[in-house]
C-alpha cells in the first residue's frame, strides 16, 4: 500500500526530465556568464597574485579565501569553477579550499533572513562556526592529499 502511494507521488520519467531541464536551464546562463567573467579575470590573476591578494602564508591565504567565500553568494558550482581557475593560476589549495567551503557554508548575504527565522544568536554563531570550520577543512584536505 505504502509503496503504491510512493509510486503515485513520484513524477514520470518525462516529468522528471522536464524538471531537470528546467533546473539546468536556470543554471546555464549563470554558469556560462561566470565562465566568461572568470576567463576575463584570469588574465589579471597573475597581477593579483603579485599584488599579494593570495600567495602569502597558508594562514593568510586561508583567511583571504574564507573571507571572500563568506561574502560571495551564488551556486556552489560557481565556487568550483572559480576555485579551479584560481588553483590553476597558482593560488594555493589551502586558499582555494577555504574559498570553496566558505562559499557554500557561510551565508553573510542570508544572515538577516536566517536571523529572522532562528534569531540573531543562532545566525551569528552558526556563521562563525561555519567560517572556523572552513579554515579547518582548508588545512585538513591538502594535508591528507599531500600526506
Amino acid at each position, binding site marked *: 500500500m505504502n509503496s503504491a502511494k510512493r509510486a503515485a507521488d513520484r513524477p514520470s520519467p518525462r516529468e522528471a*526530465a522536464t524538471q531537470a531541464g528546467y533546473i539546468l536551464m536556470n543554471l546555464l546562463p549563470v554558469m*556560462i556568464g561566470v565562465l*566568461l567573467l*572568470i576567463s576575463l579575470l584570469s588574465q589579471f590573476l597573475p597581477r593579483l597574485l603579485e599584488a599579494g591578494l593570495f600567495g602569502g602564508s597558508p594562514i593568510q591565504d586561508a583567511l583571504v579565501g574564507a573571507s571572500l567565500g563568506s561574502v560571495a553568494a551564488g551556486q556552489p558550482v560557481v565556487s568550483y569553477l572559480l576555485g579551479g581557475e584560481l*588553483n590553476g593560476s597558482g593560488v594555493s589549495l589551502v586558499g582555494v579550499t577555504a574559498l570553496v567551503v566558505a562559499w*557554500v557554508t557561510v551565508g553573510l548575504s542570508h544572515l538577516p533572513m536566517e536571523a529572522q527565522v*532562528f534569531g540573531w544568536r543562532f545566525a551569528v554563531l552558526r556563521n562563525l562556526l561555519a567560517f572556523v570550520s572552513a579554515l579547518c577543512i582548508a588545512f585538513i584536505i591538502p594535508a591528507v592529499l599531500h600526506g
Partner: protein
Amino acid sequence: MAEENKPGRRASRRGGWWFLGAMLLLYLIVGRLDPALFEASLTGFVSTLTDLLPLFGVMFLLLWLFNLYVRSGRVMKQLARAGGMRGWIFSVGAGVLSMGPMYLWYPVLGQLRSEGLRPGLAAAFLYSRAIKIPMLPFMAHYFGASYSALFVTSVLLFSVLGGAALERLERQ
C-alpha cells in the same frame, strides 16, 4: 525539488539571463578597447567550456535521477520527528538532498523549528547543503576525485560537529 518550478523562481531565472547579457556586453566593450585581451579571454572561455561540456550531460542525468527518486518533503517531515543519532542522519541527509536556493528553505525550517526541530539539527541541515551531488562532477573535474571525496567527508563531519557545538553554545 518541486520548489524549483514555483512562479517565484521566474525572477531569479531572468536574473541569470541578465547576468549573461551583461557579460556579453562586457566582452563587446573589451573587444573594442583591448582586442588582445578579448582574444585571450575568449580562447580561455572556449577551452574551458569545451572541457566542461560533457559534465553538463552528467549533471542533467543526476538531476533527472534526483527528480525521479528523491522526495525532499518526505525527508523534511521525518526530520521534525527524528531524535538522537537518527536526527543527525536525517538532518544531514535532508541537507544533501535539498535543492533550490536557501531562501526557499528558511520558511520550511522556521515551521519545523516551531514544531520542535532542535537548533543543532537545523544548523547541520544548513551546513550539509554545501554538498550538491549533481554538481560534484564539476568539482572532480577541477580538483580530482580524491579531493571531492575528502570535501564531502569533511563537510558531513563538520555538519554534525558544528551542529553539536552550536547546540552547546545556545544552551549557555
